[in-house]
């Protein structure tokens, strides 16, 4: 039994391994051959779990389970004994996020020019929405895919939690082992988990076509499932909802593609009392404190961004510093979780090539992850997350015989996995590593004595034959067979080829010399190679960039904080009765304006000399689409009142910083205008560096976007199949929606909570307010009459370019107006837009604002307001109010912002010049007393950005030189959210380049 050859034999059998546990229900086509699968692994370093290692210990397994572990325990007579020669035994790894055994999932499509698909194509008693696949039970479609299993086993995995990665609600996952057995035997747990994402996957249905639609769908699904418990007759049997309820007690795993979506997922969970386990994206280290605050456990991928080829500087110019920083810092993700004390497991998910798992994990270890945590994240933590701690995750009697044998500590660089045992069967990995053949041998070839020196590890041995000369030899080993080849100097290029077998310390065989003579040879090991204790990779003292907030070129290590500020001797545009004050001071404390006047003093204040400068309230943009992600239009239905911009705020949109440089401090982020009743809006304060929640304007009246006219009737889509197709239909969509909402409000307890109708009921109850995209006078009047009929006021007409024609009607109704200064003629419904529109509406007595609806123009709203001075002779103060106080009024926040008044929020702009002048620049933009844009600081940020980017570019070039794989440099252009599906005002470079790509067909 000590014979190595026998051990080879054992392995050989295992490779072919007949199942030790046959399925008794299956008929036999042979004689019965019962097996016990009884093995004793001796002389092993057994890592029972991340904290316990037994030296020189014994592991006994039987029938696929662990029977005993310990030092000095008796060996059963009938067990096959395997001498591990000081090798290491670990519990096999667990991947809690796998699609192993799943059929490939097709990508879904959405083409708004194609006819609408309003309901699911899934046949059967299921949900209305094709992205809700809660009824899917992965176990029922699971098939063993040994090619994939093999790759995972190679990386040390023995068990996976697998599910069908398709849709927003994905059904249950199953725990299976990676054994090459009949499905019945590898399936450990049929219903182990429930899975979710924000990606509609293969669904071809229109809804949802935006991230906010995905969130809304999930939210409604929670409510529907709760309602379904009452067995509503009207719904009949809905197996999707039924499944959702049945799965409520399972671990709930939510996959996200970005750190912000991790927070989104957690927030949805909080709304419904669910704590999701979050399958992370890999950039969560950028907001680690926020991740911790979710109290979630995470499943982390180790798929780091591939380096780019940045040899060409003009290509590198379009790779953002944020992307470069992430490339550098992605391997710190797991370490950051450990440091923050957040529980996490690791997954191979996201790797294009599973064989990169261990190398990438080692990189994470080099960059701060401890080996103990790494092991826990592959064993006990995932076992706990998926409720399998009784069977896998550590080596203990009674658990599955899922373990791996490695040549050394598992995360050390040169360690090899010799075998991966799953359910008591061995899967050879680097079987050659059973026998470390490295060492010094006496070699006799025929009668000639040599020395043979072998270094390295299995699969990568290097050999030298030392006689008169020292000659490098080729060595190849496969199981117990070995080949040596060399060319001595005297042989003039001709090669001697030896073949033989190896047994412990002794090789022998035959060969052919360079001259063609056959010869016998023999090698006897004289000494083993000294095992290299420095085989672990040293932690690299690598220079790493800082995590900045936001994580882009204009972020800082610390987020600007509220200060005590005294602006002295400026021209102060109060927007109050006091008008424009010359040589005046403004004192700001704790985020508020505390005093306005002359000769103010405060010893603790940072004093800003305002001599020659102008101070105004921060600009408020009533209509914008920046700072939101995942699509600003949920176009799939004509009424989508349930979707919320609040769910998709993007706190890192550089356009916010750009607009701060133009004095914008608050911005009303609207749903787009592709449908009649769009989504719920979100008022933001540009607190640059904060999270989505930190950006939201607190305690404001909720609003919703409506739209009329060409966009909602899809005038530029010749195949539109979505009702309505005319302004006549638009009026009916509105009337119908509010009629349904009225009926809904009358329903008694136990009704299905419908988030779409809830939002409309809020409008009817004057708790939610409309900002309505509108252009021509007919539709404006129609909207007014619908509102009159249902007893609410249209709070704001936005765009409203023909507002001047019906200003008297809007005034009588009580509406506000928010318009453009001078846009016109880009589509039929703006043919009569005129620059005097704002002025006329104001003269008629309406509260009028100028908005941007454009990421570029928002930087110059003060100048857009000034155009009314030019075109109509509006007073300068009135003009400025159109971008400050008036929008504050129409957004119901004039008690806090919009003017410079004691007690109001310190949202201020210090201008270099008259604030309506083309020459005016914001020198400082202050939000809640924090200086969030400072022109001097901006210059420094730009200089720092240049240095940091150059460092990273050089590092990436060096990585390429050092052998890192690269992809061609791909530019990152910013996608601006567009109000409309069709018309693009085209002010970004990408718009210009993509247009040329189309024209010249490249």
């Amino acid at each position, binding site marked *: 039994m000590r014979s190595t050859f026998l051990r080879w034999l054992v392995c050989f059998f295992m490779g072919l391994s007949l199942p030790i546990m046959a399925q008794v229900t299956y008929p036999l086509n042979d004689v019965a051959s019962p097996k016990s699968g009884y093995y004793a692994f001796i002389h092993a370093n057994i890592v029972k779990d991340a904290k316990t290692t037994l030296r020189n210990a014994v592991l006994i397994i039987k029938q696929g389970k662990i029977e005993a572990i310990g030092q000095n325990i008796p060996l059963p007579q009938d067990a096959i004994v395997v001498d591990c020669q000081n090798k290491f035994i670990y519990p096999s790894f667990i991947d809690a996020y796998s699609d192993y055994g799943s059929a490939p999932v097709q990508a879904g499509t959405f083409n708004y020019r194609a006819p609408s698909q309003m309901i699911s194509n899934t046949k059967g008693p299921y949900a209305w929405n094709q992205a809700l696949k809660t009824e899917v039970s992965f176990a029922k479609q699971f098939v063993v895919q040994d090619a994939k299993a093999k790759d995972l086993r190679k990386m040390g995995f023995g068990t996976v939690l697998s599910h069908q990665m398709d849709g927003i609600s994905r059904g249950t996952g199953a725990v299976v082992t990676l054994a090459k057995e009949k499905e019945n035997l590898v399936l450990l747990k049929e219903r182990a988990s429930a899975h979710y994402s924000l990606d509609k996957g293969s669904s071809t249905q229109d809804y949802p076509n935006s991230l906010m639609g995905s969130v809304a769908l999930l939210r409604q699904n929670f409510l529907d499932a709760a309602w379904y418990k009452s067995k509503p007759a009207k719904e009949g049997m809905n197996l999707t909802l039924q499944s959702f309820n049945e799965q409520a007690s399972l671990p709930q795993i939510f996959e996200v593609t970005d750190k912000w979506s991790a927070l989104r997922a957690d927030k949805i969970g909080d709304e419904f009392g669910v704590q999701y386990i979050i399958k992370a994206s890999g950039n969560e280290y950028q907001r680690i404190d926020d991740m911790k605050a979710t109290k979630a456990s995470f499943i982390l991928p180790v798929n780091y961004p591939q380096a780019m080829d940045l040899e060409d500087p003009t290509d590198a110019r379009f790779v953002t510093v944020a992307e470069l920083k992430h490339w550098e810092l992605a391997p710190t993700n797991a370490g950051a979780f450990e440091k923050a004390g957040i529980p996490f497991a690791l997954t191979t998910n996201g790797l294009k090539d599973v064989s990169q798992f261990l190398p990438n994990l080692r990189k994470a270890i080099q960059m701060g992850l401890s080996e103990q945590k790494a092991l826990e994240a592959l064993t006990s933590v995932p076992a706990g997350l998926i409720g399998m701690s009784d069977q896998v995750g550590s080596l203990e009697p009674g658990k599955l015989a899922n373990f791996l044998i490695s040549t050394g500590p598992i995360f050390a660089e040169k360690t090899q996995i010799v075998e991966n045992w799953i359910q008591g069967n061995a899967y050879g990995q680097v079987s050659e590593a059973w026998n470390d053949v490295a060492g010094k041998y006496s070699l006799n070839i025929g009668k000639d004595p040599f020395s043979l020196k072998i270094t390295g590890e299995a699969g990568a041995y290097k050999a030298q034959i030392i006689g008169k000369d020292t000659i490098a030899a080729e060595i190849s080993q496969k199981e117990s067979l070995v080949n040596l080849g060399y060319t001595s100097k005297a042989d003039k290029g001709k090669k001697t080829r030896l073949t033989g077998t190896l047994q412990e310390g002794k090789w022998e065989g035959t060969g052919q010399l360079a001259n063609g003579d056959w010869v016998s040879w023999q090698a006897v090991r004289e000494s083993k190679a000294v095992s290299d204790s420095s085989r672990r990779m040293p932690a690299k003292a690598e220079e790493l960039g800082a995590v900045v907030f936001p994580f882009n070129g204009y972020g800082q290590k610390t987020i600007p904080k509220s200060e005590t500020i005294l602006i002295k001797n400026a021209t102060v545009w109060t927007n109050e009765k006091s008008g424009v004050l010359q040589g005046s001071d403004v004192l700001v404390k704790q985020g508020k304006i505390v005093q306005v006047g002359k000769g103010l003093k405060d010893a603790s204040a940072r004093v800003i000399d305002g001599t020659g400068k102008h101070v105004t309230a921060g600009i408020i943009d009533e209509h914008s689409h920046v700072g939101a992600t995942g699509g600003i239009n949920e176009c799939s239905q004509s009424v989508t009142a349930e979707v919320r911009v609040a769910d998709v705020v993007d706190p890192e949109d550089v356009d916010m910083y750009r607009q701060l440089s133009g004095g914008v401090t608050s911005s009303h982020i609207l749903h787009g205008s592709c449908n009649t009743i769009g989504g719920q809006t979100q008022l933001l304060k540009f607190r640059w560096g904060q999270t989505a929640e930190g950006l939201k304007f607190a305690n404001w009246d909720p609003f919703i976007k409506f739209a009329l006219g060409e966009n909602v009737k899809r005038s530029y889509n010749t195949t539109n199949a979505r009702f309505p197709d005319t302004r006549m239909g638009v009026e009916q969509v509105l009337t119908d929606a509010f009629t349904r909402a009225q009926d809904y409000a009358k329903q008694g307890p136990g009704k299905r909570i419908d988030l779409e109708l809830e939002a409309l009921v809020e409008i009817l109850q004057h708790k939610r307010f409309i900002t309505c995209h509108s252009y021509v006078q007919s539709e404006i009047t129609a909207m007014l009459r619908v509102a009159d009929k249902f007893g609410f006021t249209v709070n704001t007409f936005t765009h409203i370019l023909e507002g001047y024609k019906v200003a008297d009607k809007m005034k009588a109704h009580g509406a506000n107006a928010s318009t453009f200064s001078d846009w016109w003629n880009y589509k039929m419904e703006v043919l009569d837009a005129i620059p005097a529109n704002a002025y006329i509406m104001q003269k008629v007595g309406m509260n009028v604002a100028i908005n941007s609806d454009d990421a570029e123009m928002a930087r110059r709203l003060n100048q857009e307001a000034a155009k009314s001075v030019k075109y109509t002779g509006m007073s300068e103060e009135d003009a400025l109010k159109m971008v400050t106080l008036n929008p504050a009024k129409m957004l119901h926040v004039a008690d806090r912002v919009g003017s410079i008044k004691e007690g109001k929020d310190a949202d201020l702009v210090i201008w270099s010049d008259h604030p309506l002048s083309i020459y005016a620049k914001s020198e400082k933009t202050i939000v809640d007393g924090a200086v969030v844009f400072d022109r001097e600081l901006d210059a420094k940020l730009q200089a720092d950005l240049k240095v940091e980017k150059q460092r990273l570019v050089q590092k990436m070039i060096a990585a390429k030189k050092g052998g890192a794989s690269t992809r061609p440099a791909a530019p990152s252009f910013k*996608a601006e959210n567009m109000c409309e599906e069709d018309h693009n005002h085209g002010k970004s*470079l990408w718009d210009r380049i993509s247009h040329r790509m189309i024209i010249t067909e490249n």
Partner: protein
Amino acid sequence: MKKIFIIAVGLVSFGVFAQETMHPSPAQSKTIVITGATLHVGNGTVRTGTVVIEKGKLKIEATAPTITASMEHIDATGKHVYPGIIAPNTNLGLVEVSSTKSTTDFEELGEIHPNIRSIVAYNTDSKVINTLRTNGVLLAQIVPQGGLIPGTSTVVQLDAWNWEDAAYAMDNGVHMTMPALINRPNNVGFRRREVESDPVKLGLERIATARNFFKEAQAYLNEKTHAEVNLKYEACKGLFDRSKSLYVNCDLVKEMLAAIQFANEFKFKLVIAGGADSWMIGDILRENNVAVILSEPHSLPATDDDAVDQPYKTGAMLQKAGVLFSICQDASDGYTQQRNLPFQAGTMAAYGLTQDQALQAITLNAAKILGIDARTGSLETGKDANILISSGDLLDMKSSQVTHAFIQGRAIDLANKHTQLFDRYKYKYSIK
């Protein structure tokens, strides 16, 4: 009596209402003398003096001539006189409503068609034109798009009955669209196709196609007579004799370098239109005598990392590098937005140019680039009287008020559809 007055006013305003009743002005008959104004010459300088307009031409004099009854005198004391603004690289008059296809006439099918002439589709009755004049835009270069070589442009003056009247410099530019020489982004859905092609490789192939075309044209034009006339080659004649410039629409450094190499190969006069990244290669542009028509200073920075004010200061960087440059508004709404050209220039003045350098960019520089500087672009004796008077700083919307404008000496009507609709609704609501 009051009632009668209101009706009278009403009649008057309705009398001038519809834009359809506005008409181009007749040729100048009286000598016009403008006195007391600050003269913004258009070449970067300011002076005092008297502007005399005779038979459509300018005379700038240090002192005022004796005003006779046969003259029309405009006392512009405290006001400013400027050269008319020139709008280069625009599809004005080729499009009325950009999103409504039947009103667009600027993108022809096919790949190479220098023979396509913008002027024949130029609609002098576009409602947009008068809105531009009101803000001082008096000339424009009408440019076709579509394909690799979209066609030939003409400079027009904006007070005309028809396109033949409008033509100011006929068929004097040929336009090329440089294929984009950059990879597809990894973060923006590409609109037209999903294919994983290499746009740089394809782009270089397209450039080779254009090069071959010009080689063939060059060879063809070496011979005087031809058994078969090739309209496309004929249309390139002016490029080879340098009576026309080649305008290459591109933005990125590599694209501009490719354009320069291309133009040098054929000894073309080159103008870059677009030039977002031109600030990176100012020295190269100057050394190669390449002019730039910068697209919209009011643009977003090219990348997230660029300075927030980069497009604002690109003009100043080109000025410093000694590059001849103008600006244009060539985005999809550019044709209507060109009334903001003076304010786009004003922004450049806020970010590094002097106000008169910024003015020069939209006047004399544009005239030089378009090859019409001998006739217009500045307040200089002998040039066409394409000028305007503003009561305040023309570049600042806070004060810009164009009170008079002249094209070839004709005092033009500064009303437009917008002023007329304004009047109409002032009447409705009794706004004074």
